C-alpha cells in the first residue's frame, strides 16, 4: 500500500490541484472575473425571500364545466336526445336522459368530438360521466382532464409570475415549478417581499362592461372602490387580453396618477364599436370582480388608446400598469410558505459561521498534532487539502452554500480526521507485532481500508437521503456533508497515504513512532 508508481503520484496531485484551484475562484474580484464560477450563497446568508405559491384551480374547473353547458345541450338537441332536469353544480353537470346508450356513444366518439375532446397524451377523454339509477347522468372532468386544466394553469401562472417579477426588476430571481400545483420563487437580496406578494396575490383579470339596468346577458351587482354598488351587464365588451401596453401617467388637468393603456387591433375594434354605440352611457372598468372606476363615455374611442383613473397613488398606478402588462393569472395564487431573511442577519450568519469554522478547524488541528505529532501534520495537511477540495467541488457545481451548509463543512472537519485516525490506530496495533516498520504501515493501511469505507458509506447514505427529502437550507447541509465524505476518502487514501509513505520510506531505519 505504500508503493506508488510515478503515474499514480502525478495523477493524485493533478486531481487535487485541478479541483482545489477552483476554490480560489471565490476570491475573485467582482469587477475582474476570469472564470465565472463561484459558490452561491443561499438566501439565509445573503438575505432575500423564498416564496412557495400554490395555484387553486377550483374556480377554473367551475368556469370550465360551465363552458360545457352550451355544447352539451347542443349535442343533445342535435341528436334528438330527450333530457330533463339539467343542473349546473360546482364541478359537474347533471341531467336525466332516456337513451343512455346513444348518449354514451356520442359522448365518447373520437371523431371531431367538440364536447369531449380526446387527449392523446394521456389516452383519455377530457370528461367522464357517472350513471346513477337508470338514467341519471353526472358529467365531470376525468382525472386527466383535471390534470390538463391544472397543468396548463400552472404553466401559464409561472409565465405570468415571471413577467411580473422581471418587471419589478429584482436581481437574479429563481422561478421554478414544484410538484404539480406549486411555484417556487426565490428573490435574493429582496428586503421586503410585501410588494411582490401583493403583486402576485392579484389575478388581475380586467374587463370593460357597460353599466346598465337590463341586458340580454343578465346583470350583476358589483361594488366599486368608492363603495357604490352598480348594476353591470354580464356581457364583456373587452378584456385585458387585448391590452398590449399599460403605463402609469399623470393626467395634466388634475395632476392625478392614471394608467394609460394601448389596445391591439382586435381590441381597438371592439372598444371602438362599443364606445360608438353607447355614447352617454357609463363604462365600468372591472378588475378582479371589483369596479375600479365607471366613467361616462363622452365620445367614441377608436384610437385604441385609453386611460384608467381611479384615485390611485402613483405607486398604485405603477403596480396596476405592471399587472395589466403582465397579463392575468388563470387562478388565484396562495402563498403557502414564506421565508425572508434580512441582509444584515445574513451577514451576521456568515460571520459567525466562518468564525466557528476557523475555531473548530484550529482546535481539531491542534488536537491532532498533539495526538500524532508528525503524522498529525500529515492528517492536518490532508484536512486542509480536504477543505480546499470540498470548496473546489462546491464551486465547480456552483452549489448553494447555506448556514447549515457551513455547519456541514465544520462537521466534515471534525469527522474527516476519522479516516486517518482509523488508519493510524491500526498502524499502531500493527507496529506492536510487526518488526518491519514498512510492513506495519502497509498492513495498517490495507486492513483499515474496509472499515474506513464501511464507516463513510453509512454517513453518505444519510447525506443522500437528506438531500432527497430536505428543502432549502437543509439541502445545503446534505450537499456539503456528502461531498465532504468523498473528499475525505480521497485525501485520506491517496494524499495522506502518499505523504505517510514518503516519511516512512525515508525514515525506515530509525525508530518511527505514531
Amino acid at each position: 500500500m505504500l508503493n506508488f508508481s510515478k503515474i499514480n503520484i502525478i495523477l493524485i496531485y493533478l486531481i487535487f490541484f485541478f479541483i482545489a484551484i477552483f476554490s480560489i475562484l471565490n476570491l475573485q474580484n467582482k469587477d475582474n472575473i476570469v472564470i465565472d464560477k463561484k459558490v452561491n450563497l443561499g438566501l439565509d446568508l445573503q438575505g432575500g425571500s423564498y416564496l412557495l405559491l400554490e395555484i387553486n384551480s377550483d374556480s377554473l374547473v367551475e368556469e370550465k364545466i360551465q363552458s360545457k353547458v352550451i355544447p352539451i345541450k347542443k349535442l343533445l338537441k342535435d341528436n334528438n336526445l330527450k333530457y330533463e332536469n339539467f343542473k349546473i353544480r360546482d364541478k359537474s353537470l347533471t341531467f336525466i336522459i332516456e337513451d343512455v346508450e346513444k348518449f354514451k356513444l356520442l359522448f365518447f366518439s373520437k371523431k371531431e368530438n367538440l364536447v369531449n375532446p380526446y387527449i392523446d397524451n394521456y389516452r383519455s377523454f377530457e370528461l367522464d360521466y357517472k350513471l346513477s339509477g337508470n338514467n341519471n347522468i353526472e358529467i365531470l372532468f376525468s382525472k386527466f382532464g383535471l390534470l390538463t386544466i391544472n397543468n396548463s394553469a400552472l404553466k401559464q401562472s409561472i409565465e405570468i409570475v415571471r413577467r411580473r417579477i422581471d418587471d419589478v426588476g429584482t436581481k437574479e430571481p429563481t422561478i421554478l415549478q414544484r410538484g404539480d400545483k406549486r411555484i417556487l420563487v426565490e428573490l435574493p437580496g429582496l428586503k421586503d417581499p410585501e410588494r411582490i406578494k401583493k403583486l402576485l396575490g392579484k389575478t388581475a383579470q380586467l374587463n370593460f362592461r357597460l353599466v346598465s339596468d337590463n341586458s340580454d346577458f343578465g346583470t350583476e351587482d358589483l361594488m366599486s372602490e368608492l363603495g357604490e354598488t352598480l348594476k353591470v351587464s354580464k356581457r364583456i365588451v373587452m378584456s385585458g387580453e387585448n391590452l398590449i401596453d399599460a403605463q402609469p401617467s399623470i393626467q395634466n388637468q388634475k395632476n392625478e396618477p392614471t394608467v394609460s393603456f394601448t389596445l391591439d387591433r382586435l381590441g381597438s375594434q371592439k372598444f371602438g364599436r362599443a364606445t360608438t354605440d353607447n355614447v352617454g352611457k357609463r363604462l365600468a372598468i372591472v378588475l378582479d370582480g371589483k369596479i375600479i372606476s365607471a366613467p361616462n363615455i363622452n365620445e367614441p374611442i377608436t384610437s385604441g388608446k385609453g386611460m384608467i383613473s381611479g384615485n390611485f397613488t402613483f405607486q398604485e398606478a405603477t403596480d396596476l400598469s405592471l399587472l395589466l402588462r403582465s397579463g392575468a393569472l388563470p387562478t388565484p395564487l396562495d402563498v403557502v410558505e414564506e421565508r425572508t431573511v434580512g441582509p444584515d442577519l445574513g451577514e451576521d450568519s456568515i460571520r459567525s459561521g466562518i468564525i466557528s469554522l476557523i475555531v473548530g478547524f484550529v482546535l481539531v488541528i491542534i488536537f491532532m498534532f498533539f495526538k500524532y505529532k508528525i503524522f498529525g501534520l500529515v492528517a492536518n495537511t490532508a484536512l486542509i487539502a480536504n477543505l480546499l477540495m470540498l470548496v473546489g467541488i462546491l464551486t465547480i457545481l456552483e452549489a448553494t452554500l447555506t448556514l447549515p451548509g457551513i455547519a456541514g463543512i465544520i462537521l466534515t472537519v471534525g469527522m474527516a480526521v476519522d479516516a486517518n485516525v482509523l488508519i493510524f490506530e491500526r498502524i499502531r496495533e500493527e507496529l506492536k507485532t510487526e518488526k518491519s516498520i514498512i510492513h506495519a504501515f502497509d498492513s495498517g493501511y490495507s486492513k483499515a481500508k474496509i472499515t474506513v469505507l464501511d464507516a463513510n458509506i453509512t454517513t453518505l447514505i444519510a447525506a443522500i437521503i437528506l438531500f432527497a427529502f430536505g428543502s432549502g437550507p437543509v439541502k445545503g447541509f446534505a450537499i456539503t456533508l456528502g461531498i465532504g465524505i468523498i473528499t475525505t476518502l480521497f485525501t485520506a487514501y491517496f494524499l495522506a497515504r502518499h505523504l505517510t509513505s514518503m516519511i516512512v520510506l525515508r525514515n525506515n531505519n530509525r525508530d518511527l513512532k505514531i
Partner: protein
Amino acid sequence: MIKNINFVSKFKKANFISIIFFILSIFFIIFKGLNYGIDFKGGTLIELRTDITVKASSIRDSLKSMNLGDINVKKFGKDGDYLIKVEQKNANNSNLIPEIKKTLSDNLSAGIEFRRVENVGPKVSSELLESSVIAISLALAAMLFYIWVRFEWQFSVGSIVALFHDVIITLGIFSILSLEINLSIIAAVLTIVGYSMNDTVVIYDRIRENLFKYTKISISDVANLSINETLARTVITSVTTLLALFSIYLLGGEILRGFSFAMILGVIIGTYSSIFVASPILKFFRVSYKTLEKEEKKIEP
C-alpha cells in the same frame, strides 16, 4: 491509553440504564409531546431587533390585541433581539406581516426591524412533517439494509436497535427540555443516524475480524477485545467531532444552536450506544465464527 477495560461486565448495568432512558423518553414523547416549530405546526415566526431594549412581555401584550391566537415571545441571543412565534388562526391573511409591524411600531416606542420572517401554511407544515418522518424511516431502513448486506442479520438487528436508542433518547431529551423541533433538528437527527452507524460499524468490523482470528474464545471476550482495540479511535473521533460541534454551538449563532445541541447529544449517545447497545446484542444472539461461516457458505455454495 489504558487498553483493557472490562466493558462486558458493565453491559448489564448499562443496558438497564439504557432501557430506563428509552422508556422515559418514549413516555415523555407520548405524554408531554414534542415542541414542534412552525416548520411542522404552521404559523409565523419573526426575528425582531429593537434599537432599545424592551420587555418581551410588552411585545406579547401589544400583539394580544390583534387576536392572533397563541403568541410566544422570547429573547434571542443579544439584547434587543427577540423571536416571536404566532400560531395564526386565520391562515389566509396576506397582510399579516405588515399589520404586525405596524402594531409593534405603534405600541413600542422603539425602532424595530424584522430580521427574519418565516411563514408556513398548515398544508405545507403537515407535508414537511410527513416527509421528515419518511426521511428518517428511510435512513434507518437503508442502514439496516447496508449492514445486512455487509454483515449478518444479527449485526443488522444490533445496529438498528442502537439507532432507535439514539434517535428516541435524543428526541426524548428534546421533549423533556421543551426544545423546538424544526427542519434543522431533523437534519441533525439524520446526521446522528449516520454518525452512530459509523461508530457501530467500526466496532462490528473488528468483532467480525476477531471472531475469525480467535475462534476459541467466547463472543463476550471477542466483543470486549474489539471494543478495547477500537477504543482509542472511538474516543479520538468523538473528541474531534465534538470540538467542531462545540465551536458551532458556542460561536455559530442562534440559528445553529438547536442543531448543534442535537448533534452534540447524538454524538455522545451514539458513541455510548455502539459500545453498550450494539455490542451486547451480538452477545445476546451468541454470534460466533460459525454464524459468519454459515452465512458465507450460503452465499458461495
